[in-house]
């Protein structure tokens, strides 16, 4: 069990009705990328389906995951989060791509 910091993109913060740039998410062990996503969706069920597909669990094409300067987008979702994320020092970042508009 860990409390991690998560940065959500603007539109998802609005959907989740949170004002702050960072939110705190409780995640279960092992502290993987999937655990972080599960934790986000457990605290904010209105975000289910917006970051990853409801059925396949596949990350949406225009979203990326970053932490501690690493691109975690293409890592297996059972990859452990960096120690500094698990320790609450650095955030897990869900980032919307710059794709025009």
């Amino acid at each position, binding site marked *: 069990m860990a409390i991690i910091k998560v940065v959500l993109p603007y539109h998802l913060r609005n959907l989740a009705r949170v004002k702050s740039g960072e939110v705190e998410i409780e995640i279960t062990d092992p502290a993987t990328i999937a655990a972080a996503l599960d934790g986000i969706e457990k605290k904010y069920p209105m975000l289910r389906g917006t970051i990853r597909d409801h059925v396949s669990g596949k990350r*949406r094409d225009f*979203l990326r995951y970053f932490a501690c300067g690493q691109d975690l987008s293409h890592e297996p979702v059972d990859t452990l989060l960096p120690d500094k994320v698990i320790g609450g020092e650095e955030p897990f970042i869900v980032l*919307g791509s710059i*794709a025009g508009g």
Partner: protein
Amino acid sequence: MGGVRVLVGTKKGAFVCTSDEKREKWDISEPHFMGWEIYHMKGSPVDANRIYCSQSSGWFGQIIQRSDDGGKSWFQPGTAPGEPTHSPEGFPLAESNKFVYDTSDESGKPITTHQWYDGTQHPWEFKRVWHLEPSLDDPNTVYAGVEDAALFKSTDGGKNWQEMSGLRGHVSGPQWMPGAGGMCLHTILLDPLNHQRMFVAISAAGSFRSDDGGQTWKPINKGLHSNFMPEPEAEVGHCVHRIALHPSRPDTLFMQKHWDVMRSDDAGENWREVSGNLPSDFGFPIDVHAHEPETIYVVPIKSDSEHVPPDGRLRVYRSRSGGENWDELTNGLPQENCYVNVLRDAMAVDSHDSCGIYFGTTGGQVYCSPDSGDHWIPIAEHLPGVLSVEVQTLK
């Protein structure tokens, strides 16, 4: 004294416009869901405060929003503010944005393939909700027309959605193909005199009718002719842009097709062209006057390649004879240098004694005619591109 509430979906958010019955002065709400595409909003015919909204984005997918106070505040059904967000077991409660094709043995159909742009076969993939059609008698029941083409139904106010898979699973499915905007189910018409009967339209598959409450479906495209198809009069494959009916005569249907304005007087069994003297019979919306079942409206645009009004003049055309003979309506509309389009879900009518006609443009203008089309006034002129317009008559 009554009024009207106009629900405007745009490429960058939703707007709620209100006026009294004169429909001369308008209040426009602050934008809702700013930055999101609002393909459609529609109110329940039996509860004017109940409005459903389709909110989507290429980044974050599909969201369904609901208002129970006439568009002042919104929430995602299933996660209403103040309600528990989790079941006693700790699982998140139902999500309003979960549209999953039904492939179950009990009620579903297998995911098959449809034609892709290049003629190859392509599997069905859910993309977004184009149209929401609330039930005629139950505010908690609402239908959703989606891309890739399928029909969904919710009976709990938009919390849970179940596919009515008989349509997607129709034997003709592999012949359906996407239009330029995608393979969308964009029109849902509910027959007010026969609750077992519904009509839908799909680009580019055509029109379909169910006589058993949506369990089974029949293509109703006889009489349509589409030159872009190898077989121009095939049973399916037609790019129907919109169909409309008058509630007092639901066996009479009017259609704006890719090209051609059509009508049927036998619930879609047979169609005949009624384009008559239109300057172009290409267009997207079509609608019927609230009190005159033979008075219909279209907005011609130049061609399939040039989605702009002919001659740069924005004109609504009205036929008082159910087609064939059309009059141009221009009073109050720009008659020079106008190159906007009116999309298929961006026209609506109210049911006040003096019938109001409404439409929105890709240039962000929303117009109202409080007198059946004789005069037009702008409700708004600088919104984001308009995707849909619906109106609620408040009495």
